[in-house]
């Protein structure tokens, strides 16, 4: 039988039962490879359930440094009978299916084109451990040990990792190492090791780190000077506030008094959460909330208030598959339109699109500067894939001495000196006006913040001209905003070309990889990664300079494409869509396949996953 052969380049998928402690063992596996100098990209595919349903963990290993989903599974490791039929069917021809053969494999599942390897995990556990909880936990560690032998991993890296992981709980170190050895020995003695697919130490990660985007965002909020966090729990955003709290506890407790230099309020719902952020920001603190699509829907009215009354507001949207409750534990980039034009009336909201944990950190901190400088909501758009998975990322950095940009705030001294204050008066010509914090001066600078129309001095008015003047100023401010938000990144093709791709956020890595595949076939494409909305003139020129631009995104309705068409008044022919919306991160093979189909002249519908799978695996 054919055996897939490769060194440091494969996709492995673990099939587990939710709530059985498999996550930490799977993490250990990915981290060990990372410590061997190999770029890894682990992705948790989990159900909306606390215990019992199937859950998967897919790890991409690529010495070449491709971190997106490739598509296809080379090795499946199945310890969940519930999903076994699906798991084995997904394996690439010539791939490997590793399962717990304490019970024999259902003959109907056997595939002749897949290498089937049995490791009697349950039996080993039952022989070794009496306590059922131990049996369950160590079963996971045992298969990691077995994989170490099957893939020829450096065993010492694993044992060091265990020692690091259980620092402070030393009693757990030896039993874990023992479990690793049990699996390792069994595989070595009973299976032909290593498999055709194996690893060897490399030097391909440099100073990179392995971190989830939500933790990076929480840290960004700490470094960005947030003091007030208000939130309502929702997957996949919850861990942003968890991380903020974890680090705030570490660095924001006043050593003298033991009191907190931060306040975290778990609100009664998202309306309240964003209301608190607006109230705190209005009062001169840096504040944020984190949520996902359903929360954004609820926050919509307040986002309009913050836009119109020009109150700095920081919102982190960790997107998941909608509409409605959708697939709450699956990823998508499908809140683009609902955030870009969030709220009734003529509104436009600033969006940031990070694509790595480092950018989550950088943009997370920068969001507070932008919000205060631009006096408007800043909505940072990440997603479940970036937020909840460990992503390989450049290390986090902070320039010591960097100061916060608190924007245009008129001080008591300025007011005292007689500087004229008009809350909505554009004195500098950039359409951004001065604000005052409450309690600044005993008799000057007070104003009434409202969502109703008002004149330049913040006095209520229903005069059409004044309303219109203000709305036009907000449009001029929109132009100012373009100069402040992160600009796009361009990767030019090796050869001059008039076709291009445009993507954002977590579609970056798979797109990059797909373009490499295409280039090998002689299809060269320039690439642009958009990092913010409003789009600046560079985005416009890039599109104009190409005959055809493929917009790659993870939603059904081609939302970024719609936004580009609306903002630049483009016709429908210029931009073509490459979409994935099945809840899994878009894969390189899927992107390549769709672009190929377009270029072959087919007007294609967004591809269903199974069609892509037939065409090469997904």
């Amino acid at each position, binding site marked *: 039988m054919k055996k897939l052969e490769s060194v440091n380049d494969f996709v492995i998928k673990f099939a587990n039962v939710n709530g059985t402690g498999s996550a930490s063992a799977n993490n250990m596996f990915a981290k060990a490879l990372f410590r061997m100098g190999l770029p890894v990209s682990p992705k948790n595919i989990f159900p909306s359930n606390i215990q019992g349903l199937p859950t998967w963990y897919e790890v991409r290993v690529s010495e070449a440094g491709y971190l997106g989903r490739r598509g296809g599974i080379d090795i499946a490791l199945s310890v969940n009978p519930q999903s076994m039929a699906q798991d084995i069917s997904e394996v690439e021809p010539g791939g490997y299916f590793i399962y717990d053969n304490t019970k024999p494999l259902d003959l109907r599942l056997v595939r002749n084109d897949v290498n089937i390897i049995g490791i009697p995990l349950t039996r080993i556990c039952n022989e070794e451990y009496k306590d059922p909880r131990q049996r369950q936990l160590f079963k996971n560690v045992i298969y990691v040990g077995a994989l170490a032998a099957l893939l020829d991993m450096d065993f010492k890296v694993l044992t060091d990792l265990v020692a690091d992981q259980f620092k402070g709980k030393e009693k757990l170190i030896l039993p874990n190492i023992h479990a690793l050895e049990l699996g390792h020995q069994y595989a070595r003695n009973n299976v032909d090791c290593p498999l055709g697919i194996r690893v060897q130490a490399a030097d391909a990660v440099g100073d990179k780190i392995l971190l989830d985007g939500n933790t990076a965002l929480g840290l960004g909020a700490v470094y960005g000077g947030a003091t007030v966090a*208000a939130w309502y729990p929702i997957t996949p955003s919850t861990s942003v506030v968890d991380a903020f709290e974890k680090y705030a506890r570490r660095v924001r407790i006043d050593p003298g008094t033991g009191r907190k230099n931060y306040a975290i309020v778990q609100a009664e719902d998202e*309306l309240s959460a964003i*209301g608190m952020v607006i109230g705190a920001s209005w009062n001169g603190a840096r504040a944020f909330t984190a949520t996902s699509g359903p929360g954004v829907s609820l926050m919509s009215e307040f986002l309009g208030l913050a836009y119109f009354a020009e109150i700095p507001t920081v919102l982190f949207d960790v997107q998941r598959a909608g509409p409605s409750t959708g697939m709450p534990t699956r990823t998508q980039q499908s809140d683009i339109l609902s955030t870009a034009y969030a709220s009734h009336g003529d509104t436009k909201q600033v969006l940031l699109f990070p694509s790595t944990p480092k950018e989550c950190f950088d943009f997370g901190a920068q969001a507070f500067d932008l919000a205060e400088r631009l006096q408007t909501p800043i909505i940072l758009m990440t997603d479940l894939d970036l937020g909840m998975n460990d992503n390989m990322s450049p290390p986090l950095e902070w320039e010591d001495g960097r100061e916060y940009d608190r924007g245009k705030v008129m001080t008591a001294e300025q007011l005292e000196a007689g500087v004229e204050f008009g809350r909505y008066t554009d004195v500098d010509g950039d359409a951004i006006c001065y604000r005052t914090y*409450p309690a600044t001066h005993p008799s000057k600078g007070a*104003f009434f913040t409202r969502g109703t129309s008002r004149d330049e001095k913040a006095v209520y008015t229903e005069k059409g001209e004044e309303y219109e003047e203000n709305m036009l100023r907000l449009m001029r401010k929109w132009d100012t905003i373009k100069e402040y938000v992160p600009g796009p990144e361009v990767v030019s093709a090796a050869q001059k070309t008039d076709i291009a791709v445009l993507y954002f956020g977590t579609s970056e890595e798979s797109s990059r990889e797909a373009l490499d595949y295409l280039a090998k076939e002689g299809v060269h494409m320039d690439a642009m990664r958009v990092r913010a909305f409003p789009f600046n003139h560079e985005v416009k020129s890039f599109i104009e300079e190409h005959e055809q631009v493929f917009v790659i995104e993870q939603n059904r309705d081609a939302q970024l494409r719609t936004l580009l068409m609306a903002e630049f008044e483009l016709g429908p022919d210029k931009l073509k869509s490459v979409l994935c919306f099945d809840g899994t991160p878009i894969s390189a093979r899927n992107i390549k396949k769709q672009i190929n189909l377009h270029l072959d002249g087919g007007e294609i519908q967004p591809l269903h996953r199974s069609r892509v799978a037939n065409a090469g695996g997904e």
Partner: protein
Amino acid sequence: MSYQIPKFRHPDLPVNELGYTRADYEGSISTLCAGCGHDSISGAIVRACHELSIEPHKIAKLSGIGCSSKAPTYFLGKSHGFNSVHGRMPSVVTGAAMANRDLLYLGVSGDGDTASIGMGQFAHVARRNLNMVYIVMNNGCYGLTKGQDSATADEGSVSKKGDANIYSAIDLCGTALQMGATFIARSFSGDKAQLVPLIKAAISHRGFALIDVVSPCVTFNNNPGSTKSYEFVRDHAEATGTVDFVPMQKEITTEYEAGFSHEVTMHDGSSVHLYKMEEDLNPFDRTSALIAMEKHRVAGDILTGLIYMDKDSRDLHDVMETSRRPLNTLGAEDLCPGNQMLKNINASLR
């Protein structure tokens, strides 16, 4: 439109300890209907703040949407104000109070704003015992949308349209008590003698202070048959007792009968005197307060005055143990941990 009140005043108007006259606490000229109860409440707020000698700029006034929520434009013109969205004033105040614990937060709302669209936020701000004064201008109807019944309209009460309300009424004082509010009073816009000291006491209270003020809507709900009309309230108000507010280190001048009185020292050193109390109400006991409210509800009259107060209330900042320094005064030097910590974090992620 808002018009500024002309600042010309008689030179010997009484000034407070800060040298301010009452005019320094006023706002723009009201655009509410002539005779609207809300304007009287605005007047009471002006008087209370003036008499307490609070620096106007140290007050933040916030509201939702409604005629009542417009009222903050008509008082405290030197204070920052925030007219937010319908029913959501409590969350905005909560955020503001988190940012700066040193200001006095005065929330103004209507019965629609509080008891319907804002019921959730109202319940939760009470539960968190946020240090604020929450005044409901309660007219039993939605004034600004032309008089529909609100959730505080009594069952059977008839508004101008002529239909009797078929639903039972939400009692905001009872709700607040259940939710954990630590100061609860009810009053009537037409009774300044009672309202002003209640506002002062509420301001001195540390924690969530609700004053539910019946405030007739002359345009839509002041007709015979309405239980929120001037006439009905005058006839049916039953005061728990009289409240006298004594600022810090002031002599008590009011004479009152011993044996019927309570004196409460507030955290800022001022004191509240309650006297001629309704015999079986102990306003420091939740159960007693609940029973009194229920008794009066059954009797069909309106219990006014101080209903409940927790003398040992701990507000949200106390329980959260936030810094005594307002969070909005902290700078990068206090807040940003610096690059070395990131280096350590990076190292732990390899």
